[in-house]
C-alpha cells in the first residue's frame, strides 16, 4: 500500500512532460525483452506508473522494479503510441538513485576510471605495445585535469566519491 505523492510526480513531470501522456496501454512492457526474460519482474510500464503517482520510495529507495535492469535497447521509446520518452525518464530516475548512492558497483568503477584517467579503459603498456605492432598511431587522450574540472563542476565527483573514499 502506498500513498500518492503529488510533489514528486510534479518534479518528474517538470523534467519530462511526456510522462503525462502515458495511458498505461502496456505496449512497452509487452515489447520489452528484459520484461519477457524476467517474467515481468522488470516492467517499464510499472516504473512509469510509479513516476506518474510520484512513488519516490518505490522508485529510489526500494527500486522495485529495478530500473538498472533496463538494457537501454530503446524499443519501448520507439513503440510507445503516446511518444512517452521512457528511457529519458528512467535516466532521470537513475540519476536520482545515483545521488542517493543507490546504484550498481560497475557504474562506480566506470565513473571512477573516467574521473581518474579521462577514459573508461586506461592504456596499459601491453596495449600500447600491441598498437605499435599493429601499426596503429599513438593516442593522445584528454588532459585528466580538464576532465576532473568538469566532473567537479557537475557534482559528479562529489557523488562518485562520496561513501567510497
Amino acid at each position: 500500500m502506498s500513498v500518492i505523492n503529488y510533489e514528486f510526480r510534479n518534479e518528474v513531470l517538470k523534467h519530462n512532460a511526456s510522462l503525462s501522456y502515458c495511458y498505461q496501454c502496456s505496449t512497452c512492457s509487452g515489447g520489452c525483452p528484459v520484461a519477457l526474460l524476467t517474467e515481468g519482474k522488470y516492467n517499464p510500464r510499472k516504473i512509469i506508473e510509479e513516476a506518474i503517482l510520484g512513488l519516490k520510495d518505490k522508485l529510489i529507495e526500494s527500486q522495485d522494479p529495478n530500473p538498472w535492469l533496463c538494457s537501454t535497447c530503446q524499443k519501448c521509446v520507439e513503440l510507445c503510441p503516446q511518444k512517452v520518452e521512457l528511457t529519458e525518464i528512467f535516466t532521470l530516475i537513475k540519476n536520482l538513485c545515483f545521488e542517493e548512492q543507490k546504484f550498481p558497483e560497475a557504474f562506480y568503477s566506470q565513473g571512477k576510471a573516467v574521473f581518474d584517467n579521462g577514459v573508461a579503459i586506461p592504456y596499459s603498456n601491453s596495449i600500447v605495445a600491441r598498437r605499435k605492432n599493429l601499426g596503429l598511431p599513438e593516442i593522445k587522450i584528454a588532459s585528466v585535469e580538464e576532465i576532473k574540472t568538469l566532473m567537479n563542476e557537475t557534482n559528479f565527483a562529489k557523488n562518485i566519491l562520496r561513501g567510497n573514499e
Partner: protein
Amino acid sequence: MSEEEKKDIEDVRVGVFVCHCGSNIGGLIDCKTLAEEAKSLPNVAYAEDNLYTCSENGLASIKAAIKEHNLNRVVVASCTPRTHEPLFRDCVSEAGLNKYLFNFVNIRDQCTWVHQKQPEEAYKKAQDLIRMGAAKAVKLEALDIIMVNVNSSALVIGGGVAGMSAALSLSRQGFQTYLIEKEDKLGGRLNSLHKLFPHQLDASDFLDKIKNNVQNAQNLQVLTSSKVKNIDGFVGNFEVELEQNGKNIELSVGAIIVAVGSSLFTPTDLYGYDGKKRITQFELENKFINNDVKANNFVMIQCVGSRIEERPYCSSVCCMTALKNALVIKEKNPEANITILFRDLYTPGTDYEKYYRDAREQGVLFIKYGLDKLPTVEEDHVKVFNKYMGEELILPYDLLVLSTPLVANNDNKELAQMLKVPLEANKFFLEAHVKLRPNDFATDGIYIGGSAKWPVDITEAITQGYATAARASRVLSHETLEVEGATSSLPEYNKSLCSGCEICIKVCPFNAIIKNENDEIEIIEALCKGCGVCGATCTNQAIVIRHFTDDQIFSEIEAFGGY
C-alpha cells in the same frame, strides 16, 4: 363449394412465367420444361419461360400475354419477392389487373441457390412450388388499395435540446408544430449544466441561443407545464389530449415525436455520498455555477451505479463529463490535484479522444479499478486497488465527485402505454430496429430521439432531434398515404364468431387492433401490416388474413400433397 364459386373458378385464367435468372436458375434446372408442364395445371391458360422476366422485354411479354390470353391471374417463378415483388405488382396493374392478383414463386433463393448440389431434387421442388403457387393464384382476390388522409401538423413531446431541434426543423419545413414541455421552461438537462464539452462553452449561452430560435420560429407553438393525458388514432391522424395547468387542450396531429430525455441517478449509500463533501458531477457543476468550489485535492469515481448487474449499461456521457469538470477545475486552479478512478475510459472518435489527452496534458491523473475490487471511501481519503500497480493506493481528497449514469424517466411507462410503444430492459424507449431504424417506433407515425432512447451527449441529441424531424416529415409531406392492402380483417359474416377474448389485441405487434366503443373488436387497417399473427392465434378463426386466406393456403397444401 357453391355453384357460383365453381363458376368463378372456371373463369380464372392463370399465366405462369418461369425465369432463368441468367444461369442462377436456368443453369441448374430446365425452365423451359417447367413452363411446359405448368400449362397442364388447373386454370393455367398460358405459360412461358424468360431469360430474365424482370428485364424490360420480360415485363413487356407479361403485359402482352395478359391482353392476348385475357389472363386474370399472374404467377412469376423467379428470384425473391423481397426485391422483385413490387416490380411485378406494378407490371400487372399497368396491364389493368389488381396488383394483388399477382403471386410470386421463389425458385431461386429458396430452391436453386440452396440445392446447387442436387439438380434433380431442385427440379422436383421447383415443380411443387410452381404447382402450389398456381393453385393459390386461382384463389387470389382483388384487394382495395387503402388510402388515409394525413394531418400535416406534428407534436413533439419534450422541450429539451433534442425536442427543440426536432420542433425547429419541422417548423422550418413548414409544418405546424406543437412543442410540449412538462416543466415551466424549455431546456431540459441544459438548464442544470455549467460548461459543455468538448469546447468548454457556457451551457446557458448555448441554451439561450436555441430558445431564441424556438421563440422566433414560425408555425411553432410551445406549451410548457404541459402533460400528455391521452393519445388515440394512427399514422397521419392522431388525437392528442393535453393538460396545461389544469385545463385540457386537444390537438390533432399527423405525427408524434418522443424526446422526453432521461433522469439523474442519486447514488444513495454509494461511496459515502452525502451531497456535501461527496457529491455527483451534476452537483459539482451546480457548485461551479454558484462559484463555491474550494477544494484542492479532487478524486472522481466513474461508473457509480452503472455497468453493474442491476444497471448493466454504460451511460456514455459520464467520462466526458468528468474530463470536462476536471479541466474546468484545472483552468481555475492549475495547482489542483485531480485523480479520476475509471474502469474503461469512454472517449470515442476524434475530438473526445483529444479531450482525454488534453486532460492528461493538464496533469489530470487516471487510475483503473476493477469491478472485483471497488474503491473504498474514508472521511478524507480513498483507497483504490490500482490495477496498474497490482496494489492498493491511498488518495487524499477534499472533494469526492461521483460520476453517475443517466437513467430512464419514471413516467416513461405511462407515456409508452399511451403511445402503445415498447420500453427496453432499462426502461428506455425501444426503437423499431437498433441498426437501421434508430429513430422510429415499430408503429408508423411515432418517432423517438435523444436520451429518452439511450444516454447521449448534446451533439447526438441534436442530431437525433433532426433525425426524428426527417422521419416525421416523410409522413407529413403527403396529403394521403397508401397503406398495405393485404391486411387482416374481421368480416361482417365472421363477427358472430368473435368471442371477444382480446388475444388478437395482445399479440398484434403494430397495435392495429382495438375494442371500439360498441365493445367490438376493430382492426385499424391503416396500422395493420398483414403479418397474420392475429389470424393465426384467433381461437374461433373469426379473423381473416387477406391475401393469405385459409382457402388460399389450403389450396397450396392440397396442390402439394394432391399429386
